[in-house]
């Protein structure tokens, strides 16, 4: 029973349920036409985009060129390293010029208690040593 209402016939979709090959090709033509004519941004807009990109860009890392002295200082260990090296050099020089009195005796004892004085400029000394 339909209470006197007319039943609406559903639309016949049998013709469009499966796309025909011909219609498929036509749709591909439409896609191809759309692909060939993409919307292009104008130059003014591109310039604004470039300005945005540059404004957002992180700052480049600054590479300072170092002098030879700065490079040596860095290898040694900065000012502390240089100070230590200078002190060691000064102490060595001082010991060479004016050794403390006890050190000479210690060296002689370590060498067996004999001293050997060699004057490389005097051939007489050599002759005396050989007898």
């Amino acid at each position, binding site marked *: 029973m339909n209470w006197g209402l007319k039943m609406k016939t559903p639309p016949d979709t049998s013709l*469009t349920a499966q*796309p025909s090959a*011909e*219609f*498929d090709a*036509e*749709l*591909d*033509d*439409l*896609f191809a*036409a*759309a*692909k*060939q*004519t*993409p*919307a*292009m*941004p104008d130059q003014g*807009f*591109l310039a*604004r*985009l*470039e300005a*945005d*990109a*540059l404004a*957002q*860009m*992180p*700052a*480049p*890392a600054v590479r300072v060129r170092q002098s030879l002295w700065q490079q040596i200082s860095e290898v040694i260990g900065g000012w502390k390293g240089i100070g230590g090296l200078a002190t060691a050099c000064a102490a060595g020089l001082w010991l060479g010029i004016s050794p403390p009195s006890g050190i000479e005796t210690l060296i002689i004892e370590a060498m067996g208690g004999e001293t050997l004085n060699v004057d490389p400029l005097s051939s007489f000394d050599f002759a005396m040593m050989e007898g």
Partner: protein
Amino acid sequence: MPFDAMSDRDDEDLLALYATGDAAAARVLTQRLAGPVYAHAVRMLCGDRSEAEDVTQDALLRLWRAAPSWRKGEAKVSTWLYRVTANLCIDRLRKRKDGPALDAIPEPEDGTPSVNARMQTKARNDALQDALMQLPDRQRQAVVLRHIEGLGNQEIAQIMDIGPRAVESLTARGKKALQDLLAGRRDELGFEDEDAT
């Protein structure tokens, strides 16, 4: 690095250079990416160029901000950008109460010499755009990416965050819906004439 030498570098390399403060990389990336992003936004937004410009600007700004923390090999720059663009477009479409009048769709730029051919191209583009705008957002996005931008199903799946089979289903349903929508306009679009010849 000189501008020309950068043309051969891929997007990821250029983005890494951009993150180190390379201005030439910024220019090349802008020139390379702005066009496809803008064209996609125009398609998704019913030809509204002003809104498409806003979306393009927003999408690229997001890319520039993501550049320092970009992890190489995780996603293609273009895929990421299409995804951001599509999401921005869908957000805007959802906020719209009424779409723009179809007459507001600007005339596509094309270089066809004949007036008739130009008019027919315009009619076809308008008809396609009109039909596309009647599709649900996700179907339209899938159809545009597949059939107009020419991307593969795998990349579309990444952009839309769905599986490749879902992409196939969306594009098939979208294409079928377009055929239904355009069925009555074949004569107007010049297809009946072509059949007759």
